[in-house]
């Protein structure tokens, strides 16, 4: 059996994944990083994108979209602290596009600064998810 490492993906709104994985790909700020079990300790900032996990005894990969966050790697444990997270199966691209359009529309008629900031946060959230999905789609086409 291949070596595995304990992976936990959590966001403030709940735990997204907890279990063993053989290989992890995460979008670190300075580029994507691939992590095998026994990796040297590392701590990195993440940018929005998709985390891909190769699970033992399973074909294919588990995909989780994250916005920015922190990635911590210990030899036998990987912790991903996501500011916002979304499982692939919960994602709905059409819905996200709609969200983006709506937010951009309101942005044009913005009222106050606070309102503006709130909307900007929403936009970033929608965009990061969309970006994650597009990355994934692109990759799938290549295969």
């Amino acid at each position: 059996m291949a070596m595995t490492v304990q992976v936990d993906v959590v966001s403030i709104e709940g735990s997204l994944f907890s279990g063993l994985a053989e290989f992890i790909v995460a979008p670190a700020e300075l580029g994507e990083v691939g992590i095998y079990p026994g990796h040297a300790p590392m701590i990195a900032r993440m940018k929005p994108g998709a985390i891909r996990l190769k699970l033992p005894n399973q074909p294919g990969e588990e995909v989780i979209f994250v916005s920015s966050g922190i990635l911590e790697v210990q030899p036998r444990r990987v912790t991903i602290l996501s500011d916002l997270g979304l499982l692939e199966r919960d994602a709905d691209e059409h819905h996200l596009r709609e969200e983006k359009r709506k937010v951009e529309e309101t942005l044009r008629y913005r009222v106050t600064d606070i309102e503006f900031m709130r909307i900007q946060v929403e936009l970033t959230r929608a965009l990061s998810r969309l970006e994650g999905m597009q990355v994934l789609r692109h990759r799938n086409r290549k295969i």
Partner: protein
Amino acid sequence: MSGLREIRAKISTVQNLQKLTHAMEMVAQSKIRKVRDRMNAARPYGEMIRNVCAHMSHAHPEYKSPYLHQHETSNRAGLILITSDKGMCGALNSNLLKLAYQQMKHWQEQGQEIEICTIGAKGMSFLRRANANIVSHAVGIGDTPRMQQLALPVGRILDAYKSGELDSVHICYTKFVNTIVHQPVMEQLLPLKGEMLGSPFGYWDYIYEPDPKVIVDETLRRYIEALIFLAVAENMASEQGARMVAMKAASDNATHVIEELKMIYHKTRQAAITEEITEIISGAAAV
């Protein structure tokens, strides 16, 4: 008879009130489950980020983050006060405000200036009346705590601490023990304590990306924000619990009041009938 009509009106008023309190009790009952689930959902993140911070405190002893070490220069304290937005939840807010007020008095006696960030409308209106120095606030946060609603007001206090304007930051909220028991607490948030648990196993260090200073500060900042988020979630659960208990007590009291009023009503009615009969009989006797 006017006396009877008045009592009848009173009874129906109390009955209407009881309907209201009962409805609020039911609403709180259904909400508390959701709020408690949300509170529990945030727990894994809190634990994980705590572990990461504990690892980090062993890894890199050279860089001292301002979040971990007191600077004690300004003689100013920060306070984050979390209350509910709405009332009708018993003594929840007044107990908390009492605690906060005592602490503020204590600081003032020591000659410390206080900067306050209030989350929730009740705390804000109280402190406005007390003429406290409110630097930021968040009101109308609803039943779902959201990081983006809290980030801005809380950020002002945290930034002030980081730049050395504040010596310490405390957080005051109502801890959720169980549905009936809620405890107002005051905890020190900054500088962080108790993150140096366990002993380091040999010398080792992380690979930092982009660089240690940025990442250490950012991770600790997230940890603090997670603590505040958890406190807000707990406060919300406490609020619903307290409201449920308070509204149940109010409904029960209404039942008692209605019973008493009904008794008076029947007695008055009986007295009126007796009086009428006596009048008729005495009238008949006179004829």
